[in-house]
């Protein structure tokens, strides 16, 4: 194959960078050795002919599913062949194979097997684990129903124990109780872990998990009493067979209830579980993955939009001069650079949560759950904050690519449709924000009653002090130094404190006026969400700022400091009302902030391409004609379009079927 030259604009951009992108890549990966290993695994996948296929944009949904199943099967075998067992390395391998998309075995690998490990008895593990490990059993995790997602206690599927036969009878009593959405359920799985309301001895014992065979081993036909299928086309997730499952008097043996904790004895006696706070740990872990995913998805979109903006020339900035790169327009920089800064901020936040989780998971296993509530509350909010921001940011990047961003060849539509469900799954974002708010209000109440709180909410301790010395607040307004990230962290801290206090007070006022706690909570929920957002925003600015001091290379530290400042100042300029209303900043300071944001855009401009190069996405993984490393955009758009199914024949069949007869008649 002929190697194309690198686009001259991109070559110039790279030559002008003030730092070495590899050094920044190492920081993002967690060390040079991690980068080396990641690239090694990437090469294993990308150079493997088994993982090649046609551009997915030109395949039907059914073909995409087929490709995904093919690759997943090979992936499982090759992972074992290569002896890759580290969870992060498995994650890399999987994401290179599937190019960042979901795949039909996700739920088997990510939920079915882990649930067996954590909730099955040793006997159950003997029966199910090895067959599942060897993929004779492929399972999914069937929790969500048509009518219930967020409110788990409202699930309607029933499992009624029959002591006469020592079986559970599973039923989907209403349309709304049909299991809906589980990945891999539609076509792939032959088993499911089903969450159902347990009834024994005439009493409902709440939600429990059951292993339910759904398809005949050998023929893969649904078992009698089971109705199962695919839920139809979605916005994205084309390769995933999200499914439905309806059960009619379907019987499973007593031993199929996951009984490591709660148990039903042969006579139907129910034995209660011990504390189940342990599941918190898993939630924290999954949400930390979503924060990381927000960072990566936004990074991919930024890579595409910034490279393309360096290649695309349009209009004139100066009369008589050649058309400039669109990256030279202030409005374009203003769209993209804050997002670039955000992507870096989220990377560091994701890494922080993961590290914290690993640090305290030892304690958790030993039964010390003291740090868990705060981490749980914090990750709920950060999951929502980062996924919302990334969701909007990806769209902004696509818009910044104009018309060509709208073509599937840009790759951004795919990033968006794959990412956007994370605002809903693993905890709907508004509900997540309100969980964090609950923790904040609780902490505020503790402080009000004279106790001290620790961790990320410790700033609330200052509130009582400020009330004693009200002039303190006013005195602080002039102390914000807009060139100093540490000072900006303080500004964000004051804003969070003020909004938490306002929400808590409004909640109290509602409580004073009204009857129920729930009503008051609902009538304050818009304020509560704002308070949570301010808290999360503070945490992110704080963590980004803290990261700066860990960076030894001066050039890298300088450019990250600029990004950190941009992130913090842009956040202020988008929320000036909060800072003005609380008296944290004056009108004049706000004007300075706005001005400084624009100065930073110009400062970051020469490093923009190098900053996205540092994310180090391989072209195959990026999947974008606009974002190609070599910048040869237009030639490759043409090559790509020629492969479109509409171009298969020169004259489309519609001409003979419809156009010609019409012309004859009119």
């Amino acid at each position, binding site marked *: 194959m002929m190697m194309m030259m690198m686009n001259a604009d991109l070559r110039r951009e790279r030559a002008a960078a003030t730092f070495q992108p590899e050094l920044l890549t190492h920081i993002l990966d967690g060390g040079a050795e991690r980068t080396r290993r990641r690239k090694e695994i990437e090469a294993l996948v990308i150079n493997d002919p088994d993982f090649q296929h046609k551009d997915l944009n030109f395949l039907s*949904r*059914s073909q995409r599913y*087929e490709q995904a*199943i093919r690759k997943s*099967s090979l992936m499982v075998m090759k992972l074992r062949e290569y002896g890759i067992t580290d969870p992060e390395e498995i994650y890399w391998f999987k994401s290179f194979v599937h190019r960042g998309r979901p795949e039909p075995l996700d739920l088997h690998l990510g939920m079915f097997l882990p649930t067996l490990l954590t909730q099955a008895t040793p006997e159950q593990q003997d029966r199910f684990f090895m067959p599942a490990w060897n993929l*004779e059993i*492929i399972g999914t995790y069937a929790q*969500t129903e*048509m009518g*219930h997602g967020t*409110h788990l206690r*409202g699930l309607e599927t029933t499992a009624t124990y029959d002591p006469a036969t020592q079986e559970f009878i599973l039923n989907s009593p209403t*349309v709304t109780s*049909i299991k*809906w*959405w589980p990945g891999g359920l539609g*076509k792939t799985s032959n088993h499911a872990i089903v969450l159902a309301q347990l009834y024994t001895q005439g009493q409902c014992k709440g939600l429990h998990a059951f292993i339910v065979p759904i398809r005949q081993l050998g023929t*893969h036909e649904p078992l009698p009493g089971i109705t199962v299928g*695919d839920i*139809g*086309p979605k916005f994205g*997730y084309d390769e995933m067979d999200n499914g439905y499952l309806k059960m009619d008097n379907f019987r499973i043996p007593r031993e199929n209830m996951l009984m490591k904790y709660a148990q039903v004895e042969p006579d139907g006696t129910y034995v209660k579980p011990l504390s189940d706070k342990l599941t918190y740990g898993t939630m924290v872990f999954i949400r930390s993955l979503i924060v990381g995913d927000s960072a990566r998805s936004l990074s991919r979109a930024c890579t595409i939009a910034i490279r393309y903006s360096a290649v695309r020339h349009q209009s004139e900035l100066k009369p008589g001069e050649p058309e400039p790169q669109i990256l030279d327009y*202030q409005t374009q920089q*203003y769209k993209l650079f804050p997002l670039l800064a955000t992507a870096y901020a989220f990377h560091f936040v994701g890494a922080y949560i993961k590290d914290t989780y690993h640090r305290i998971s030892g304690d958790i296993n030993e039964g010390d759950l003291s740090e868990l509530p705060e981490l749980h509350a914090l990750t709920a909010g950060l999951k929502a904050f980062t996924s919302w921001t990334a969701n909007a940011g990806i*769209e902004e990047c696509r*818009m910044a690519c*104009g*018309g060509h*961003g*709208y*073509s*599937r060849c840009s790759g951004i*539509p795919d990033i968006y449709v794959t990412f*956007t469900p994370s605002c*809903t799954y693993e905890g709907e974002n508004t509900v997540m924000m309100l969980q964090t708010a609950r923790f904040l209000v609780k902490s505020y109440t503790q402080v009000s009653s004279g106790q001290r709180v620790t961790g990320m909410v410790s700033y609330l301790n200052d509130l009582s002090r400020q009330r004693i010395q009200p002039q303190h607040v006013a005195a602080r307004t002039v102390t914000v130094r807009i060139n100093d990230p540490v000072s900006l962290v303080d500004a964000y801290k004051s804003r969070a404190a003020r909004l938490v206090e306002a929400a808590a007070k409004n909640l109290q006022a509602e409580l004073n006026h009204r009857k129920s706690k*729930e009503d008051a909570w*609902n*009538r*304050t*929920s818009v304020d509560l*969400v704002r308070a949570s957002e301010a808290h999360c925003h503070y945490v992110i600015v704080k963590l980004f700022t803290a990261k700066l001091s860990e960076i030894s290379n001066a050039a890298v530290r300088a450019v990250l400091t600029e990004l950190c400042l941009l992130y913090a100042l842009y956040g202020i*300029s988008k929320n*000036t009302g909060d800072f*003005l209303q*609380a008296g944290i900043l004056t009108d004049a300071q*706000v004007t300075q902030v706005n001005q400084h944001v*624009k100065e930073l855009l110009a400062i970051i401009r020469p490093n923009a391409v190098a900053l996205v190069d540092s994310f180090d996405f391989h072209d195959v993984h990026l999947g974008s004609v606009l974002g190609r490393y070599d910048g040869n955009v*237009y030639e490759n*758009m*043409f090559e790509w*379009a020629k492969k*479109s199914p*509409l171009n298969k024949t020169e004259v*489309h*069949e*519609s001409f003979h079927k*419809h156009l010609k007869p*019409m*012309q004859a008649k*009119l």
Partner: protein
Amino acid sequence: SMNPDLASERQTASFSVEQLTAQLDGGAEQTRMRRAVVDTIQSDPIFSRENQYFQSQNERYEAAVRKAVHLQKKMREMGWTENGPEYKYIYRALSGDVAFLLHRVFMRSISVLGSDKQIAKWMPLSTKYQLIGSYAQTELGHGTYLQGLETTAVFDVTTQEFILNTPKISAMKWWPGDMGRSGTHTVVFAQLYVHGKCYGVHPFIVQIRSLQDHSLCPGITAGDIGPKMNFEHTDNGYLMLQNVRVPRENMLNKFCEVQPDGTYVTQGSQQINYLTMTSVRISLISDEVITPLMKACTIAIRYSAVRRQSKLKPGEQEAKILDYQTQQEKLLPQLAAAYAFHFINVYLQDLFDRGYREIQRKNFDMLPELHAFSSGFKAMVTQCCTSAVEICLRACGGHGYSLLSGLPSLYTKILASCIYEGENTILLLQTARFLVKCFKAASSGQPVPPSVTYLAAVKSGKCPAKNKLDFLRPDLYTEAYQHTAGRLISSTAAKLQDLIESGVKKHDAWNECTVQLAQAAKAHCHYITVKNFAEAVERLETKAGIQKIMKNLCDLFALHGIFSNTGVFLHDGYISGAQMDMVTASYLDLLAVVRKDAVPLVDAFDFTDKSLNSALGSYDGQVYQRLYEWAQKSPTNTETSPAYERYLKPLLHNTLSKL
């Protein structure tokens, strides 16, 4: 049967839904006609959209061509014409899912840019579909900046022909609809060269496919540009020209002509043509932007009244998600925006009709203002409605992500409107240029167009509100918007002036101020929208039942705008911190008030279930049953996939390694 949760919402409506529908349509007679047209179209199975979510790009394209052809037959049957009053309802009934829309643009450009002779030659062929036209302006490398187009048309005096060429890859025509597969002709925009001199961009009619067998003409390379986020039914195309010759008469020559000897002459005024082009931006607002938002609101609000989740009070039934304040705060401002934009659209249509009449009388005074309006409102309305549809989509949780909700396709379609017919940032800056100019004129006492006279009196002041109820006074919040827009425009103009006076070159100064300029232009359009909504509500006087609810929506729209942009209102102390708390309180109170009429307010948009094409939004609220039944019709359930035999079976039987 009707879902009882929706039935109860309808029983408590505070106004007559039918009366509001008539208001939206512009009269009961229009409502009747619209319903008749929609019913005629939608009862014909050829126009069904039920399967579209299951179809491939090829199938969608074919269906669109079939519908377009069938529509010609239907129109003749019904006696409808393209200029008749029914036409806009046809489009609504089809939800735009039909081919040959660019064919209409082709015809319009001939009638606007062509001479009488050219019109006489091409229009009959076009109306009879003896040819299918397209409009080839955008290139791979150029969209916004038309002067930069690279396609060339060189006049050859000896043969009296133009020779068209695509000199490089970035010059390839890219995106024109109806060109990838259907078009036989297209209007190509190219740089005209005569005797080696470039005369700029001009339009040429070029045949690209044979009228006999539809094969490509010599020198033509054309095809489909591949999958997009939406518009699967449209064959957006590419076109490469290699020494393609067209006769001299094929240059559209109403305004400029190349004479046989190569002399270039211009004739007449292009200003009327200019207005036609800018008015396209206004005409798309209704069908392509406001209608999709109204549909998205209908789907999301009905679904939120049917969906129950979690409990608001212990021991009670799970609550409708519409009863959660956070859900109201997502959806109801979007509903208010749909109404606000409906009224601004009516206003703009009137303004443009008036402008058109003036221009025909050779009075061009209104042109700059009309241009600024068309740019600014196109940008603001498309941007607001696009994000509003996305909010509706996400407010429907997991089920919103299913294509069967109808929301993903509404979203992916509306978002294209932010780019076509002028990229939004560029358009806002055009409006900003007008505003800065008017500000300067007004400051020095010169006359300015009526919509910007407020710029003459920008001064500091304080909002007079004393309690939260004051913020329900339209004069008070309109004043706040006016003050803020004025302040943003004047401060940006001042900064621009300062930069220039300090020696920065004009264009550099402009680029340095563009972020602020765009913000100022948006603030101006926002102000006009609020003002116009408040005035429209006042005119509803006689229809008391409607006026009250429209007043609530107007308040909600205005206060939501302040609540979401507190900084700009607080900045110079026009609204104080204490007053801002009143705004928030009033705004949140309004959510609870509008909540009560939310379902009737979307019912008033009067979309049929077939128009919505959504499992979540149908009138009877049988959401889950419909979702379940529809999903079973998916090809993933009705057709067998080779995946099991080929891959799953060997995997499950552990024989994969033997493959």
